[in-house]
């Protein structure tokens, strides 16, 4: 199978800034994600999950190692027309509506106006935002903003979905809605990378997990293997056990 995402010996250190020391974010991390696969990035805060995503989206560049996404370098901006990205927190210009953002997304992905209209209506209805489509995004609740982000990420029918904490800010109903949607997208053959602190979701939705701790790769493989390796009954217990072992070695 072709690798949609390929990380090879990637290292990244955030440069020293005024009052902040330089900080190792990723150390020699390698992994790959095959087409149609689902991978979950897990780890404590500061583990390097978001750094992996930022590297994939070309927000930051690696110090060493190589990264490819859909067979090309992340620096190739055109490739992002085949990628749907959901940030952890919604970041929109204050005075725009979700429709403005959808038109913008469609325009940059070279979608015809008719397709943009059809896809916008489909995803706004699906995510329960149709009635709020003309309201400024600043008036959306956090959960609504997250769903708006989802609609924007899915508008161009991407081959690869990169989801940074997709359940962040959602109420239980919203969480179930998004969780079901991710499952549907997975069943539809989309390649999905997501990071989450909610390990039950990760366990249920992914084929493989990548456990990171302080920038180092601790485990890569199916969630069940992590539990077996650590001799625990759940992925959450196995995660805690592995991280504690690493801390005690350090």
């Amino acid at each position, binding site marked *: 199978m072709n690798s949609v995402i390929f990380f090879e010996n990637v290292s990244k250190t955030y440069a020293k800034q005024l009052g902040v020391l330089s900080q190792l974010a990723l150390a020699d991390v390698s992994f790959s994600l095959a087409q149609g696969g689902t991978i979950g990035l897990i780890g404590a805060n500061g583990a390097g999950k978001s750094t992996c995503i930022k590297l994939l989206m070309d*927000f930051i560049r690696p110090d060493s190692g190589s990264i490819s996404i859909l067979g090309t370098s992340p620096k190739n*901006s055109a*490739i992002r*027309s085949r990628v749907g990205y959901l*940030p952890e927190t919604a970041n929109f210009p204050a005075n725009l509506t979700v429709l403005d953002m959808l038109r913008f997304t469609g325009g*940059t992905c070279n979608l015809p106006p008719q397709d943009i209209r059809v896809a916008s209506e489909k995803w706004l209805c699906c995510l329960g935002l149709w009635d709020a489509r003309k309201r400024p995004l600043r008036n959306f609740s956090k959960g609504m903003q997250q769903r708006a982000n989802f609609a924007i990420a899915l508008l161009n029918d991407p081959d690869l979905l990169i989801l940074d904490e997709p359940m962040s800010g959602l109420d239980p109903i919203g969480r179930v809605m998004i969780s079901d949607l991710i499952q549907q997208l997975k069943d539809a053959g989309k390649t999905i990378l997501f990071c989450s602190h909610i390990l039950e979701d990760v366990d249920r939705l992914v084929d493989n997990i990548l456990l990171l701790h302080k920038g180092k790769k601790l485990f890569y493989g199916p969630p069940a293997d992590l539990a077996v390796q650590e001799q625990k009954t759940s992925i959450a217990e196995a995660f805690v056990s592995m991280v504690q072992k690493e801390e005690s070695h350090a």
Partner: protein
Amino acid sequence: MLSRLRRIRSLSRLIIIDGLRRHALIGLILFALAGEIGGLLFFDFIPRDIGRASNDFLFSISWLTGFIFLLFHAVQVMAWDDERRILHTFLARPISRTEYVLAVFFGLAALLLALNTVLGGIGWGMLNLIRSSVDAASYFQHLSLPFFLLASAGLYGIELMLLAIILFFSGAVRGNFPVLLLSLSYYFICSGLPVVRQAIRQQTAHPASQYVETLLKGLTALFPDFSRLDFKTLVASSDPVPALSQIVYPFALSSVYVLIVLWLACAIYQRRDLE
């Protein structure tokens, strides 16, 4: 190339819509319009040369409004993009960093053009109204539409140069306040440099002043003399019309300057990490 232009247009459109819906900006325009209409009262206090004084007043209002727009909207747009990570939302789409810089520039430039057009239109109307209210032969002899348009274009040219510099500083340093301070400092240096050059020129007898003059002349490549684009005195005066080259040359220079600064801004955005 066409798809690149389409992407730039899509983002520019967002910048324009966001600006048009911003209440502070609408307030600024209303404030400026009130100021221009205030010109009707202002000219009552001018004993002579009403045309020149009213014209200066109206162009000053336009310039001040554009300056406030640049410092308190353009700077904020760039800073918010970075600090609130709106930039990530934009760059998660198939937009390159160069396209981002160009789209923001064109979006803000279009807003500035709309602002100048509205204020310029009202200003021209005010000048005509004032002229018709006084004894034109004695107090308001000259009023030239071509020179009014030229002066407006010059004003817009200065604003575009400042906008390009703001984009450059926004790439080079982070945060709203540092960019604001740097942009203000830049403007003051640009405004002050011709005065210093003039003062040095008057001391030509001193040998050291030759070196200083050369140095200051070189500095004008970094800190251009905005007054070269200031043609407002031609609108309502009988001053001799400058040669065509004296009009074209400053515009050509400012276009080159904007292109170079934008290229540098793009280069900075290409290289930097967007943490």
